[in-house]
């Protein structure tokens, strides 16, 4: 019997065939503070049944924190969550699931070694004569997947199937356990066009059955293709909730990364010499399927900004320049010398430095001291047989602690115990200590306070004054415009435009990113 597959609320249809839109979820005045950072400040979020509601915002905007509060990963500091009118306080993802809130994560939290059918039914397998009834499981799972447009062999291990199908299995599981709210966290990042189309038709089907779907994504075109309503967060604050039909793409992009009026600066841009030599010359570098061929040049003393939304290819480009990934096509040259970059160590030796975006995963070595973290890259280039004498290490650490105003009682404190902003500064210090000719910074100001942001921007410009070059990747347009001599705008994993930093406005950049009017909708 297909009990799990019937329409959930047949009485909810009006004459037009639309689902009546009852509010199933109301989050009010949600506050969440982590040490040193206010992740959410008085955020509201409303979800109706039979609605696909997109949640938008750059990294650090607070959308993942909001979802973690909803699914019980974090306990919010203040605010209320009303689920179908009743206040709830989920204590864990399991708890949230039991209440009817299911999540499909980007990494698809299923067990890759089990079959598709089993993943859908594990923990609640139908039994027959004391044994697992595999026949029923396989049959029902096949039916479920069929309803979602997939006629697949559900008796094969999940790992064999591409992410698109794994996601569907995750959704099927949620549907079968009668979820009322389905959260899709960046579901389309690894899907191709067809798979995205299929996902959207499933989402629409779920919506028609009365489910509320929260769709987290950074692909704006997809929001316009499938969502009914959208909410924008920025820097932990609610910017607004809009029906998708009533907000233009340009307005949306502005809401997401537009100007923050409270910041006052007094910065002077870098001034490269007129006859400055070309430091970095990258010609048509690219990885098929990941980044389209990009060419860029950076002069001595120049600060080049990389603008664009998350996922537009900025980090991918930086990783190619640093040897983290290998550019399959094209060439990279420093000071005229063509480089073979097989590992980051090669790039460091050629005076390129790269401060990565994910400081927790690629940046800090948490249990080592501030001093050791700062000295790490320098030490790596020297090899372990030529250690930096203790005195020099200490001097190096002291120099940068002072220069970057790193708040730490002493250089021996474990980096893992510092606040996010100070951790970022330590990593920055590590790279500055290698005396690079080219420093690539990927979102160095994310998740840190305004004062620290200003300091870091000042530092970048200082470096340019010393005839070094900087590539500055950021989601905040105003920052980029303020600091850059030239700005490269990335869009959809390719270079969209290159503009002069002194002659453009925020609106110009925003419209290039939004590409208003020229791109077709996906479905």
């Amino acid at each position: 019997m297909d009990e799990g597959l019937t329409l959930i609320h047949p009485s909810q249809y009006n004459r037009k065939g639309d689902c009546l839109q009852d509010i199933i979820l109301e989050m009010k005045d949600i506050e969440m503070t982590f040490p040193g950072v206010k992740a959410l400040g008085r955020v509201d979020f409303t979800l109706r049944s039979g609605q696909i509601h997109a949640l938008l915002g750059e990294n650090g905007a607070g959308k993942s924190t909001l979802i973690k509060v909803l699914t019980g990963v974090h306990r919010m500091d203040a605010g209320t969550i009303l689920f179908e009118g009743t206040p709830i306080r989920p204590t864990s993802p399991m708890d949230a699931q039991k209440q009817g809130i299911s999540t499909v994560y980007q990494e698809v939290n299923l067990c890759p070694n089990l079959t598709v059918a089993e993943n859908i039914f594990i923990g609640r397998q139908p039994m027959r004569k004391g044994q697992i009834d595999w026949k029923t499981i396989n049959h029902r799972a096949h039916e479920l997947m069929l309803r979602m447009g997939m006629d697949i062999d559900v008796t094969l291990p999940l790992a064999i199937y591409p992410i698109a199908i794994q996601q569907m299995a995750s959704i099927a599981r949620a549907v079968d356990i009668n979820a009322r709210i389905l959260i899709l966290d960046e579901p389309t990042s690894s899907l191709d066009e067809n798979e995205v189309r299929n996902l959207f038709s499933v989402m629409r089907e779920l919506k028609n059955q009365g489910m509320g779907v929260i769709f987290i994504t950074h692909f704006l075109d997809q929001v316009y293709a499938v969502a009914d309503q959208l909410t924008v967060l920025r820097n932990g604050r609610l910017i607004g909730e809009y029906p998708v039909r009533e907000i233009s793409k340009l307005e949306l992009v502005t809401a997401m990364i537009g100007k923050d009026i409270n910041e006052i600066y007094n910065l002077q841009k870098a001034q490269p010499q007129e006859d400055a030599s070309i430091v970095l010359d990258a010609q048509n570098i690219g990885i098929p399927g990941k980044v389209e061929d990009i060419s860029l040049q950076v002069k001595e003393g120049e600060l080049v900004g990389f603008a664009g939304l998350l996922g537009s290819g900025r980090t991918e480009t930086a990783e190619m320049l640093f040897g983290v990934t290998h550019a399959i096509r094209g060439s990279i040259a420093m000071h005229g010398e063509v480089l073979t970059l097989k590992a980051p160590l090669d790039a460091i030796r050629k005076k390129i430095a790269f401060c990565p975006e994910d400081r927790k995963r690629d940046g800090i070595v948490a249990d080592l001291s501030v001093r050791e973290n700062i000295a790490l890259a320098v030490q790596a280039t020297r090899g372990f047989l030529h250690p930096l004498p203790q005195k020099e290490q200490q001097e190096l650490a002291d120099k940068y602690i002072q220069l970057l105003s790193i708040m730490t009682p002493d250089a021996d404190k474990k980096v893992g115990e510092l606040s996010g902003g100070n951790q970022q500064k330590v990593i920055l210090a590590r790279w500055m200590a290698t005396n690079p000719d080219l420093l690539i910074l990927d979102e160095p100001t994310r998740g840190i306070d305004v004062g620290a942001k200003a300091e870091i921007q000042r530092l970048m410009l200082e470096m340019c004054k010393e005839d070094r070059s900087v590539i500055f990747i950021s989601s905040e347009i105003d920052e980029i415009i303020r600091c850059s001599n030239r700005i490269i705008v990335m869009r959809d994993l390719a270079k969209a435009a290159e503009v002069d930093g002194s002659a453009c406005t925020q609106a110009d950049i925003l419209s290039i990113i939004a590409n208003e009017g020229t791109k077709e909708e996906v479905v």
Partner: protein
Amino acid sequence: MRKTMLSSAFIRSKLFWAIVAELLILLVGFILRPDFLSIQLRTLSDGTTVLFGTPVDIFNRASEITIIAMGMTLVIALGGTDISVGALVAVSGAIALKFLRWDVLVYTTPGDYTVKPYYLALLLPLMTCTLMGLFNGVLIGKLKLQPIIATLILMVGGRGIAQIVTNGKQFTTQYTPFKFIGNGSVLGIPVPILITLVVILAVVLFVRRTSFGMFVESVGINPNASRVSGLRSDTIIIIAYVLTGLLSGISGLIYSSRISSNDSNNAGLGYEMDAILAVVIGGTSMTGGKFSLLGTLVGSLIIRTITTLVLYFGVVSEAIMAFKALIIAVVIVLQSEPVRNAIAKQRSKRTALGGEARA
């Protein structure tokens, strides 16, 4: 080494408990028998003066494990493990005795001679064990195999190799310079203790005077960040296993010297377990990261002290294992995260000042 101790409160707490445990055990021995801790100089029948006493004995007998555990500390700090060390001890002894044996076909009575040059008898075992360590290192560092299974290969095959080398025979030797390694003394201090001290000094210098120690810790704590920062983890891993191989070889020489023969079945039996325990009790976590060579030394001493204590008081040697297990269980439980967190919470509740949690 001072920096090692002071720079990490985390390790300090584990090390602290380990030292406390050792002192407690020694104290128990002292209470039960006042001369447990006494050390005296005695003159042996052959005219040499030697330091005598239980503490000396403990340190002496702990030599083989302590030496191996120095290398094992680095291996574990990298998140791996090496269970082949015991087999390498057997191989080392086998090769050494092959060159040092009293060859009954050549000489009719045992005497002070060696079949091949002495330096070869010392050099070849060490070279072989170093190469075996290289084998482990390449499998784990370059081929990315799982450490426990990669080192299982030599653990199983190593003893077989040791048997093949000596054709299954157990040789004996009377060669004085060789017997000196395990049984002699210099200025009253037993040679194994001296060798251990030299090894510890060498490893500590290598690890802290170069940045190798920092690299090991970095790779153990966060391999991704280490890679982005320019470290080559495969080289670091290979060196750690090569070093452990060499140290196993040295340990094997001491062992076979003590018994003046090679015993491929029993040499090094259980050494891998004792060495790993010594490292863990000393505060280095099995998941990798910061390590403490001093802690490993204390851990090794704890294991040997328990054994000695139990033997000393006439408890049958068979009970040693049970006691060892009990005490180790207590240490491990005390060191486990939930228990340490609970204790830390208690202590920070009592200190009225807010701020950082103390170790």
